[in-house]
């Protein structure tokens, strides 16, 4: 029996290869170009040929796409100056050519070793996301790896039109260890994986409408979910933003005092927490009664 190729176990390059039409991927700034971090050698840290981001163009179901895939194993998928410049570049190319842009995210956020240039770089990338959105060019983030999307990347993915998550993906601003350091182990135990995933994992993010799709942890399912969204975009309107603000205020009212993420699950119709914890993404979707706005 051929083992399904699990999305969260793959490397960035494998992820791209398993999602796009065979042989259609052309990498931009490929490894031989050696566009590497100018800062890491000063700190005695080895560089990577792609600075932790593989970008390029391909077709998916015959339709052209631009892609950026982060390498989570390289300095936590963090966004340094070169990494962010590549990310911004691919998003700007998408806006220019009116071709959808896919972000395969696996990042703890800004690369602290590169300080301000990483911070500035990630905000430039966010601006480029909005450039796409202003032109109605779809931006789709896939968050399906264990590192998830945190810090600046957590913010960036929420700027995109759509987010596809698997149960392995996590989405947040401050990571679990950071929260524990600030608030204490009593408030948030970062070594409690079940708690961490129930707070910021794909299932809870789907319930709260932060993720648009919760899919199986395999490339075929992720690819199918992308295919459904490729021709859609979410225009930013004042009315839409006001509605979103109201939703967030309601969420704060409903769950602001809740210290147990299971209460959120129950509020969305999950009767058996154990069953829902073991359920796959699509099974979980069937169990939950998500309130779509």
């Amino acid at each position, binding site marked *: 029996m051929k083992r399904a190729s699990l999305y969260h176990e793959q490397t960035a*390059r494998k992820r791209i*290869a398993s999602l796009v039409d065979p042989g259609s991927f052309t990498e931009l700034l490929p*490894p*031989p170009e050696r566009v590497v971090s100018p800062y890491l050698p000063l700190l*005695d840290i080895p*560089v990577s*040929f792609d600075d932790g981001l593989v970008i390029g163009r391909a077709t998916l179901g015959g339709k052209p796409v631009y892609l950026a895939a982060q*390498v989570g*194993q390289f300095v936590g998928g963090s966004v340094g100056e070169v990494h962010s410049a590549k990310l911004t570049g691919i998003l700007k190319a998408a806006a220019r050519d009116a071709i959808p842009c896919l972000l395969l995210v696996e990042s703890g956020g800004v690369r602290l070793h590169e300080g301000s240039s990483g911070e500035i770089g990630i905000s430039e990338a966010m601006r480029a996301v909005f450039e796409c959105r202003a032109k109605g060019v779809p931006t789709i983030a896939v968050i399906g790896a264990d590192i998830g999307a945190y810090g600046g990347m957590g913010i960036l993915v929420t700027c995109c039109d759509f987010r596809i998550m698997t149960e392995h993906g996590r989405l947040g601003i401050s990571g679990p260890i950071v929260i524990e350091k600030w608030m204490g182990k009593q408030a948030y135990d970062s070594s409690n994986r079940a708690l961490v995933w129930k707070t910021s994992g794909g299932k809870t993010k789907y319930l709260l409408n932060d993720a648009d799709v919760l899919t199986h942890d395999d490339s075929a399912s992720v690819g199918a979910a992308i295919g459904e969204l490729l021709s859609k975009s979410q225009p930013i309107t004042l009315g839409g933003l006001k509605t979103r603000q109201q939703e967030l205020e309601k969420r704060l009212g409903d769950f602001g005092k809740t210290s147990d993420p299971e209460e959120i699950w129950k509020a969305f119709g999950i009767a058996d927490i154990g069953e829902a914890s073991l359920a796959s993404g699509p099974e979980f979707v069937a169990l939950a009664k998500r309130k779509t706005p």
Partner: protein
Amino acid sequence: MEKFDKTFPSKSFSWPPDKEWAIAGVVGSGNLEVLFERNTESPNTMECHVESSIPGYEDSWLAALEDFAANYPAGGTKVTIHDQGAAPIVVTFRLRQAYDHLLQKIS
């Protein structure tokens, strides 16, 4: 950080016409990335450049690379390695993996 270069004699590699480079592995703890590139100037040598975060293992590196150059026709290639503390067996495995990418045996 430790950096070194060495060139080893190796039988000429017959490059597939549509390949210029191949990469395997990533720079992460206990891992490394290996890039093979075409070197048209020297068809009978494997030219190596290694950057490693762990100093003091140059002899082991050179032994692993020399073995590879002797065991496989890798002449006409330039090998660049970024290492973050990979064990010798992982080095050998990644070299072979990148080489297989060149031969298009694996995607």
